[in-house]
């Protein structure tokens, strides 16, 4: 589904990603872990099409298309979803309005009719119930005055409505208490599907207690320095990033 080859990216003259390789197939869940400043969030944003970065080298293929050529909205319509670490607020634009506009944009791109208002409301209500969200959220401005946990749940709500092929969750666990984390994880697990892939970008292992990844990658200083199964995450939790970074450096030294 997603093939990243030797991706090198710089911003303001500084190289941030230094040759990332990653293949994600349908049905898989990948976790990308790494210390702060390792480039994990940058990778997530580049995949979604954030401006301000320069692709120096490499390619990204998504469902047979050259992802890097597409506008952010075209990527979204192709089925790529980014759950933001810091979702912005948009005062005055109601949550439900954004949801509907987004869903209709997606449907239009696939040659479908606009969603029926009643069906849409029923769908949203059901998903919200699952995420234990109050319906009043729908009529508030997008993320306006939401708490950290509410914003994250709101991201998962959007994801469950838009049903992407590839969901990238950027530090979705940050700022969540344990109850909120469980709810968010349940929401994510409910979206597990043989046709869908997910990339969890996270600093800590704790999200992975609730969502078991098939693969874990460690990103450090712009490169994936180790890949493994979910036990790698557990080892990281115990030992910290230090040992693996040291190990890779000494290997590089060899």
């Amino acid at each position, binding site marked *: 589904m997603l093939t990243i080859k030797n991706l090198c990216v710089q911003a303001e003259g500084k190289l941030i990603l230094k040759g990332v390789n990653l293949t994600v197939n349908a049905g898989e869940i990948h976790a990308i872990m790494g210390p702060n400043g390792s480039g994990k969030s940058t990778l997530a944003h580049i995949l*979604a*099409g*954030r*401006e*301000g970065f320069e692709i120096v080298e490499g390619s990204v293929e998504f469902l047979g298309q050259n992802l890097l050529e597409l*506008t*952010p*909205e075209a*990527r*979204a*319509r192709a089925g790529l*979803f*980014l759950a*933001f670490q810091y*979702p*912005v607020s*948009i*005062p*005055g*634009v*109601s949550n439900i*309005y*954004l949801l509907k*506009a*987004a869903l209709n*944009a*997606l449907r239009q*791109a696939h040659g479908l009719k606009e969603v029926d208002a009643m069906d849409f409301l029923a769908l949203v209500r059901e998903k919200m119930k699952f995420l234990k969200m109050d319906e009043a959220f729908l009529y508030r*401005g997008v993320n306006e005055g939401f708490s950290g946990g509410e914003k994250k749940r709101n991201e998962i709500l*959007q994801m469950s409505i*838009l049903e992407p092929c590839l969901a990238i969750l950027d530090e979705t666990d940050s700022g969540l208490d344990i109850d909120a984390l469980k709810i968010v994880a349940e929401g994510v697990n409910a979206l597990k599907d043989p046709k869908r892939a997910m990339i969890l970008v996270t600093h800590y292992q704790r999200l992975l207690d609730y969502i078991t990844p098939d693969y874990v990658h460690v990103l450090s200083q712009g490169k994936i320095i180790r890949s493994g199964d979910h036990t790698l995450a557990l080892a990281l939790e115990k030992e910290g990033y230090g040992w693996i970074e040291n190990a890779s450096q000494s290997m590089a030294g060899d």
Partner: protein
Amino acid sequence: MTTANNTSQLDQWLNRDYEHGFSTAIESDTLPCGLNDAVIRQISAKKNEPDFMLQWRLKAFAHWQTLKEPQWATVRHPVIDYQAISYYSAPKFKEAPKSLDEVDPELLRTYEKLGISLKEQEILSGVAVDAVFDSVSVATTFKDKLAKLGIVFCSFSEAVQEHPDLVRQYLGSVVSYKDNFFASLNSAVFTDGSFVYIPKGVRCPMELSTYFRINAVATGQFERTLIIADEGASVSYLEGCTAPMRDENQLHAAVVELVALQDAKIKYSTVQNWYPGDKEGRGGIYNFVTKRGVCRGARSKISWTQVETGSAITWKYPSVILQGDDTVGEFYSVALTNHYQQADTGTKMIHLGKNTKSTVISKGIAAGHGHNAYRGLIKVMPRAEGARNYTQCDSLLLGDQCAAHTFPYIEARNASAQIEHEATTSRISDDQLFYCQQRGINPEDAVSMIVNGFCKAVFKELPMEFAVEAQKLLGVSLEGCVG
């Protein structure tokens, strides 16, 4: 890099065309350009006015000649030659039309093209319309139905003929002919406009609406609207405006007077979409308007809502004099300036009575090379015990060539006054645009969505049909803003 991209997206969006720019080929009765006593006498004679009207006009003209055109720091325009304007232009009728069937079909088509049907059976929403074409009213709908309730809704000229006592009593009682340069000019030369009288205790059952259209070349439009809500009456009035695209600037200097007696309510909504000029700032309407209401009786209320997207230059401050005790004044405004448009708008709330309240919500949007200024005055006089005001004025800037200014004057002379003014300035952030794009929404729609969200507090004050039109208009006016 990011900014450049968004700016160019904004540009595309801002560069759509003015869709009401067509003109109507219709024979007009137009006075030659120029202004003097004789012209004023001619206007008055053409309208077959009683002597008191002529005398009033002449007094206004004499006063106007003593005045100098005002100079405003934030509004710039070339000198206006008042002798190069024709002060009267009317579609030529063989005889005054007695019903819609007699109105020139070309005229009806003009209004249809603008999305306004003057045929009553085609109007679903229950809006009575007075259509003003250049200087004169061409048709008023639902007159009979309203007359049964004692409501007078007609053109100003007709009111002068049919209800001279009301006109005489109230004309100039809120905006005197000495008020300011443009109000004096209007008083001298105004040719038509709308007149509304709602009798005691009557709630007007439908929205009343006037649609203003400037068509002829080198004419000014000087209409005058007078609305009187008698004790306990209420009315909602809508005003819409468009003009063809022409290279020269045209002057629109209107006066609106509202009088609310005890317990009366007047809601006055405007969607102003005069031709704004082209992308280089050529042409467009100079919209210099005096609008003022007085809450004369206790517990009366006047509410202004305006969506200003058109005109090359807008200069207007719909105001309320809160004379009676417990009266309420409101001002809700969205003003958008794109390309080289300039808007200097705001309100004055003059608190005279006890426990008077006013609310001011102003949303200014500046794009392209647009200049947008809020200028407001909240004045609490010594006798106005318990006066309250809340003002919020926010500016949204799109692009780095535009400007937004805020000049709020507050004058408080009563110790029980509570006045609050808040203002913010923001722009559409890259983060907001990217967020929407990531959800599959293209940048144009995202900007439009965010701008409409920004204006929400004002749009919700508009009657439903107008709110929809206003949202569309905002979209159109901002087109080319993204790119």
